[in-house]
């Protein structure tokens, strides 16, 4: 029997029992839809988070004051969590492999200029902020080399702040009040958008030393060091720890590498995607039972036809192939419908809620379809074997 004929014969029975085939295929379709939809959303989230995190590059190590993993005991008793200082940053700059070290202090303040007022985020940063985070200045510059207590009162505006306070004007060179202090505008950033809930466009950037003063903080909130991608994060982390322990006398800080954070996040999301996929798998199982039932019925109903096929010269194997083909056709079409539905609904959701990222990996779609066909095959085997083993004379006598 030639393949096109097999397809023609199996699809003939598919077409003559349209409603029944539809309902049976529906079981598989729903299963595949669930799997595809849920994994599309899972993957979309995964990629979204990854992209958010790696916008600044993944070769960044963050140092924060205080040790989060201290076992027992209260560090506060000795009152000796030493703040991270600008000198600490300088020490890190001298380490090998380190490219940029940025310092930051964050807060909120009222920003006034031009008779307008706005409450925005204020980020106190080091001069290497733009370099370390691959952010670009649209006009003007970031402040020059002066990460020290004497840092001048300079400010770089986020795109939105610039637009709101200086609509249609060039803010460069003008003065602006941040929390009551006067700052001179020396640059405007390129629009960057929201990142992990922070709107970097609705932000003003001032030197870290000035921010510490403004917010009355003893030290930095965070140090970020970017390192050459040719070395592993572990090597750099070790160097940073050694240097800071030497300076502070003990490990009263926390080092987090972007890479580690991403790894943990990835594995959590992977488990989530898998769990959600398994849930869809259960509906596929239901679909499989549906196919088994329908194929068993088909063999019973078409017993006489099976006898006839044998009389016309069909081998047992051919009879089996025909029924297996039918089961596979059912599940393959169900699977395709499910793929279409799943991707369709996922995209539809994305249109309705643009914030919800979706992504269907190709490999996943192919795997889902192969699974569907595999399910058809598996649930068709028993009925097909039964059909093939029927005694032709007996079969012909059934009406």
């Amino acid at each position, binding site marked *: 029997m*030639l393949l096109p*004929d097999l397809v023609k014969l199996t699809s003939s029975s598919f077409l003559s029992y349209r409603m029944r085939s539809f309902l049976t295929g529906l079981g598989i379709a729903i299963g595949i839809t669930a799997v595809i939809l849920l994994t599309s959303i899972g993957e979309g989230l995964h990629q979204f988070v990854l992209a958010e995190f790696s916008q600044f590059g993944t070769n960044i190590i963050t140092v924060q004051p205080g040790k989060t993993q201290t076992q027992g005991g209260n560090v506060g008793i000795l009152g000796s969590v030493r703040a991270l200082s600008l000198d600490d940053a300088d020490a890190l700059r001298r380490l090998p492999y380190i490219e940029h070290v940025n310092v930051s202090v964050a807060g909120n303040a009222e920003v006034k200029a031009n008779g307008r007022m706005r409450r925005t985020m204020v980020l106190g940063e080091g001069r290497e902020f733009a370099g370390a985070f691959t952010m670009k200045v649209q006009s003007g510059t970031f402040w020059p080399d002066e990460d020290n207590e004497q840092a001048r009162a300079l400010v770089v505006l986020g795109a939105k702040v610039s637009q709101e306070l200086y609509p249609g004007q060039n803010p460069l060179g003008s003065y602006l009040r941040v929390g009551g202090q006067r700052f001179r505008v020396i640059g405007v950033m390129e629009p960057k958008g929201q990142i992990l809930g922070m709107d970097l466009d609705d932000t003003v950037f001032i030197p870290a030393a000035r921010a510490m003063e403004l917010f009355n903080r003893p030290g930095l909130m965070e140090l970020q060091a970017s390192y050459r991608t040719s070395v592993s994060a572990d090597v750099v982390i070790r160097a940073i720890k050694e240097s800071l322990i030497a300076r502070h006398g003990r490990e009263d800080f926390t080092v987090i590498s972007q890479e580690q954070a991403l790894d943990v996040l990835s594995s959590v999301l992977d488990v989530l995607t898998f769990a959600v996929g398994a849930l869809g798998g259960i509906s596929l199982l239901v679909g499989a039972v549906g196919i088994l039932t329908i194929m068993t019925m088909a063999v019973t109903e078409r017993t006489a036809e099976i006898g*006839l096929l044998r*009389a016309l*010269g069909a081998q*047992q194997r*051919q009879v089996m192939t025909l029924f297996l083909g039918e089961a596979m056709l059912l599940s393959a079409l169900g699977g395709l419908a499910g793929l279409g539905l799943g991707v369709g609904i996922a995209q539809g959701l994305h249109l309705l809620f643009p914030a919800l990222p979706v992504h269907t990996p190709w490999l996943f779609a192919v795997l889902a379809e192969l699974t569907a066909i595999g399910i058809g095959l598996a649930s068709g085997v028993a009925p097909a074997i039964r059909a093939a083993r029927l005694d032709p*004379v007996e079969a012909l006598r059934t009406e």
Partner: protein
Amino acid sequence: MIALSQVSRSFTVGDQEVSALRGIDLDIAAGDYVSIMGPSGSGKSTLLNLIGLLDRPSSGTYKLDGGDVTALDDVQQARVRSEKIGFVFQSFHLVPRLTAAMNIELPMILAGIPPEERKERVAKLIENYGLKDRADHRPDQLSGGQRQRVAIARATSMNPAVLLADEPTGNLDQTTGREVMALLEQLVEQKVTLILVTHDPMLGGRAHRQIQMVDGAIISDNGKKT
């Protein structure tokens, strides 16, 4: 061509042994036209199924074209059925979802004959059996006579040497039955061996050789061709 010797077939029903055929000796020459008659339950269909390799004898041997076919496995028997044997049934046995043309094509599809050749042969058969304007109809859109014509066209599509017809006119009225018989007898003229099971002595009488069966045994056989 067909040689049965001491062929028996028994069925086990519950704990009872039912003998459908007892020690049948039968030789049928190529191109012969044989009718098998006898009361219901006398084993006519069982004999026909044995000859058509749909069933195996409980004992005895069956030689087809000189070779012993009782020992063949499923694949080999299927090939013999495909190449040498055609069946026509009382109840037509057409596949309801397929058109008349597709039904006729079925044995050739199973045998893996290339589509171009199939198309040609189907067209010719449809023409020969007067089904031209019915080719695309499904069986439930055909009359009984038309259905049996489709069945005969199908049975002959692989040019079998032997045609086995089990009461082919049983479900037809007299006129249509006669038409169908005419078609079958035409095949005899084309050197096909026709074995016809019938209840109708009028029809059976037309065969060159008439066999009477009772209780699984042949009680009369008028032997050679006339």
